[in-house]
């Protein structure tokens, strides 16, 4: 399946999805509450079979917080990028995909630890590297006058 067919197929899964061609990979933009349903379809459907989750990246866009997933299919060898954003900086919530890909467990904990992004239905969402009183260092408004000098 080439890139265009893949984009067409993903569009057919849900009409709300926005699919576009990125510089490298096909990108899908989903609302935070639809990540889980999209992910469970992507791993099961024979046409996509995205069984390998390469990485989960949390990003602070300034106004928004976002999560980016890099997926790959070990059978078809194609890649897909899923992006999601929320404007709620106080209580950012995304669906957890830890029950779909086991590797998501630690990666979501990392995003929680460094950006304060909460993953709904994560089995064990705790801080990973830092203590619980620490701020969220990868946020752009993080202030640490002791350790960060410009």
């Amino acid at each position, binding site marked *: 399946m080439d890139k265009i067919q893949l984009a067409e197929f993903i569009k057919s899964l849900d009409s709300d999805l926005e699919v576009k061609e990125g510089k490298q990979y096909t990108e899908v933009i989903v609302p935070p509450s639809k990540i889980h349903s999209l992910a469970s379809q992507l791993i099961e459907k024979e046409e996509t079979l995205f069984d390998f989750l390469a*990485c989960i990246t949390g990003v602070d866009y300034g106004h928004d917080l976002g999560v980016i997933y890099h997926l790959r299919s070990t059978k078809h060898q194609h890649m897909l990028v899923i992006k999601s954003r929320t404007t709620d900086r106080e209580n950012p919530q995304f669906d957890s995909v830890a029950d779909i890909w086991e590797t998501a467990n630690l990666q979501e904990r990392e995003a929680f630890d460094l950006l304060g992004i909460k993953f709904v239905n994560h089995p064990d969402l705790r801080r990973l590297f830092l203590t619980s009183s620490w701020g969220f260092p990868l946020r752009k408004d993080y202030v640490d006058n002791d350790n960060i000098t410009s």
Partner: protein
Amino acid sequence: MEEKVKDTGTEEKQDYIINIGPQHPSTHGVMRLVVSLQGETVKYVEPHLGYIHRGIEKMCESLTYPQIIHLTDRMDYLSAHINNEVFCLAVEKALEIDIPDRVKVIRTLMSELTRIQSHELFWASYGMDLGGQTCFFYGLRDREMVLDIFEETTGGRMLVSYNCPGGVMYDLHPNFQKRVKEFLTHFRKVLPEYDEILTNNVIFHERTVGIGPLLREEAISYGITGPSGRASGFSCDVRKHEPYSAYDRVKFNEVLYTEGDAFHRYLARVEEMRESMNIIDQLIDNIPEGPYAVKMKPVIRLPEGEYYQRVETPRGELGVFIISDGNKTPYRVHFRTPNFANLSVLNHLVKGFKIADLISIFGSLDYVIPDIDR
């Protein structure tokens, strides 16, 4: 600490809880494992991280692209050259620069030497973990020759920082080819000794065969890449699937097993050393002439956008994800490090095995802790 363990909801009061690390020799770095035991059987193991968290991703946001390369050395210090390479490849891809052939071959040669020395250290320390002190001396003796080659050309032994965007920092040392050939001759002679002393050792077999088996589907779901994933039959060699540098012009086999136990994870690494020697053989006499770097602008700015690049390190797939807003520093850098992904499987593997097997399984996954914590 005990309260934290209770939080997971998997512990019971009668369990015996012990700490391994953060200063335990078999963790090869500062990682703490909280192990819950019933008798000698492991019920649950929980890694506690962050002892060497330096905030590399945060630091990247305030450094320029050439500066970040020196930080990538310090993630997985045993594959420093390959870490440099992934970042340079990402920058070069974003700027759409064509790299001279000479650079591609030099990078491939250096990558494979890095792979050999990393697997040698794995062999040495794994043998030592399981009670074979001799392995440690043999392994480090031979690894020294590779480090000497690095030192001569790059000036560094472990943290080489040899790559730069557009090429490599300096040309190869005139002795390079001679030294590499000397090393290969020597290493071909001693590698059968490695097999005699460890691979065919009956005590080693007792401690590794059938220990911590991992199925292919599990390996994929947990994101286990590198020799650990390939020992379970998961074909994940980036050098094969998405060739970078000069890997498209060499012939080599992807080492695959289906058993997936500690012994085959070990065996995959030993066999990879042989494959790496084959790759070096094919390239060492064919290093093309030409410039060793293309001239770059003094200040590198990536065009706005997102870039993902992956390479194969001795421990698995290393990915770098750069978001650029067009400035001289990146907006966000994320490293998909192989050790971090491989760590997630530890509890799954050791559950139900004895505490002594924990050391065997932990060693066979070949963790480098700074790569986990970043």
